[in-house]
């Protein structure tokens, strides 16, 4: 990556509404994923691995779990005297209202951005699970003298979800020439991955201009409305990603990690995904435990049978229990002789002995945090 100073800004709350069950008491960024992670770990680790040493995390509401997860940023090597991790709770210029869109949020944190020495700002949300090389994207932005670079990938717009996709039309020279927000369409198209690079001065002019005009939405009011007068470049990302826009896609994105090829593309040697350390002991497999095609976090105790599952750290599966296609979040206890299929349990759920719970791949059964069944 070039020697330019880059400030990363992560929006932890955008897309909360896509998976309401999981974001009821937390931000999108602090949603559990992949057996030991939270969604914010992916953009944050990628930033660190791409040499972006200064990152602000913009929050809106319910960010207690996020603060707890990130702490001072040490686990991402972002506990720094210069740069490092900065948590940016809502800061409102108009009464007590919190922001409504990306532009308004940026206005709220502009003082923080001003203090940074960065020349470029890298924006990312928490709805994309990927291990992007942001350095390449920043270089692309600089080489093309772009005003804004929007990252996109090939993907399917699915009408069975909450449909929050932004679809980009990109011409042969890489310029964004068309922008569709939440289009009523299906099939393969260029889906924006909600990652943008923009020069600090350019972003400043956009944010300052937007405030008096009461423009709040970056995609609609900037990328879409101004793609003719600004040079907006599309960066085609050809690596592995999954986009979480609903409970079903959340479920699928987790299950996709059971495929070794996907894991190899997400967990890349030399580009680790960092997360909060929990000091769990190793996972323990009891007598008669049977585990097939599953991802298991540390600290799990497994005495039953588990197939095609993702078990987060500290989950306990009792003897005789049988789990298939489940996501069991941390410290959940599944009692003896339970039968679970296509179930997602949030943290600290207790499922009593002998319960039978079944969802479907298209409608996984969700059990909320701390529930006792």
């Amino acid at each position, binding site marked *: 990556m070039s020697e330019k100073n880059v400030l990363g800004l992560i929006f932890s709350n955008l897309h909360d509404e896509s998976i309401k069950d999981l974001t009821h008491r937390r931000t999108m960024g602090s949603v559990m994923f992949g057996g030991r992670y939270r969604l914010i770990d992916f953009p944050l680790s990628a930033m660190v691995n791409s040499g972006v040493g200064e990152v602000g995390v913009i929050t809106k509401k319910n960010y207690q779990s996020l603060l707890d997860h990130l702490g001072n940023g040490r686990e991402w090597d972002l506990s720094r005297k210069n740069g490092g991790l900065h948590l940016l709770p809502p800061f409102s210029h108009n009464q007590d209202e919190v922001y409504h869109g990306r532009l308004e949020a940026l206005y709220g944190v502009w003082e923080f951005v001003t203090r940074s020495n960065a020349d470029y700002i890298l924006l990312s949300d928490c709805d994309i699970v990927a291990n992007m090389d942001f350095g390449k994207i920043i270089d692309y932005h600089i080489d093309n003298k772009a005003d804004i670079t929007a990252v996109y990938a090939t993907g399917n717009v699915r009408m069975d979800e909450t449909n929050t996709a932004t679809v980009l039309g990109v011409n042969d020279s890489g310029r964004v020439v068309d922008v569709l927000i939440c289009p009523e369409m299906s099939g393969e198209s260029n889906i924006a991955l909600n990652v943008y690079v923009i020069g600090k001065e350019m972003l400043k002019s956009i944010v300052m201009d937007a405030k008096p005009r009461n423009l709040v939405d970056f995609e609609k009011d900037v990328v879409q409305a101004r793609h003719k007068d600004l040079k907006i470049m599309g960066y085609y990302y050809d690596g592995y990603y999954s986009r979480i826009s609903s409970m079903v896609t959340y479920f699928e994105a987790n299950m996709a990690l059971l495929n070794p090829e996907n894991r190899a593309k997400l967990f890349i040697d030399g580009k680790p995904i960092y997360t909060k350390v929990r000091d769990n002991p190793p996972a323990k497999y009891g007598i008669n435990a049977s585990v097939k095609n*599953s991802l298991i976090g540390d600290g799990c105790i497994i005495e039953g049978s588990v197939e095609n599952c993702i078990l987060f750290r500290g989950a306990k599966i009792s003897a005789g229990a049988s789990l298939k296609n489940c996501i069991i979040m941390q410290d959940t206890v599944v009692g003896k002789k339970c039968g679970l299929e296509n179930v997602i349990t949030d943290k600290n759920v207790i499922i009593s002995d002998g319960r039978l719970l079944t969802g479907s791949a298209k409608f996984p059964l969700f059990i909320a945090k701390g529930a006792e069944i």
Partner: protein
Amino acid sequence: MYTKKECVAMLLAGGQGSRLYALTKDMAKPAVPFGGKYRLIDFPLSNCVNSGIDTVGVLTQYQPLVLHDYLGNGQPWDLDKMNGGVHALPPYQNINGASWYSGSANAIYQNISFIDRYNPTYVIVLSGDHVYKQDYNKMLEVHKAKKADCTIPVLDVPLEEASRFGIMTADKDGYITKFEEKPKHPESTLASMGIYIFNWDKLKKALIENENDPAQDKDFGKNIIPNMLADGNVMVAYPFDAYWKDVGTLDSLWDANMDLLNPNIPIDLYDPNWKIYSRNPVMPPQYIGPDAVVENSMVTDGCEVYGSVDFSVVFEGVKIGKGAKVNYSIIMPGTIIEDGADVEYSIIGENSVIGKNAKIGTDPTAVANRDDWGIAVVGHGINVGEGKTVCPKAIISENV
């Protein structure tokens, strides 16, 4: 600025651990991996932190690189403190030249100034190669209540094993009347665990006297304890009846790992109130493949298991290929067991490769003469070629 600490811990971690052979060729014994995601030193360090002792000097000497690197600034144990915390204390040069630590007592003697900075009332001396969970604070309370100058935790060992230990004779209140280091004809079965709480003023005096007497060995068990007893200090035996294991040999290292898998042996690593801390690897969760069989085992982050694992302890980042079998074995971090390999009753060091269809170790019942059987050991960073055999009891420290 240093404020007074009630108790400072001094952790002896400089020994070579020569009876671990290939496993301690390039690292000090306290840095040897243990229990799936720990190193031996995690146990005394975690005990300190859980007991409220936040100042720990770690005396290092033999192959300290891995150990120093592992300790870092002490953050994984919450020992990155402004005042106190963990300090690696290797031997150093002074105005009279440089001298290696010539014994456990000499190592502490050379670091009197480190201890004096914290002006402690008590000093606890610990060993870096014991696996156990102990609340040192409870022992300190007994030490205070009995107005002792030195308190030594003791295990009740079988009489026939007593000759391997420092043996105490104590009265019914626990006051020690006699101490013998490795006696031929033991009078008692109270064995010293090699852990001591001292009143710092008394210990300092004994260390200086010991150092000034050229006839002495500069060793706690051989000199300091008998000398202090002879000088009329109040010495107390503190009975310890929980799990404790000195992992000084390959057999005891293997046994102690297997103990973790035995539900009837009381060393619970899963107790949230007494966590054993360690430097955690940054790796994805472990993946257990579609045809894998994993039972009676501990497996940790970053592993990929496609074969079968039974009664084994598997450390972070280990890959076990299709059709490979790992039974009654310890596989240390980053090692690859290739397809079809058969590993039984073995200890495999870090970052080694066991080639396809290789056979390491064997079941004791498969050997005609029991004396020919033992744990097979492959050292760190060793390649065992495709189809090669490593016999039971063999210790491999070169590629085969």
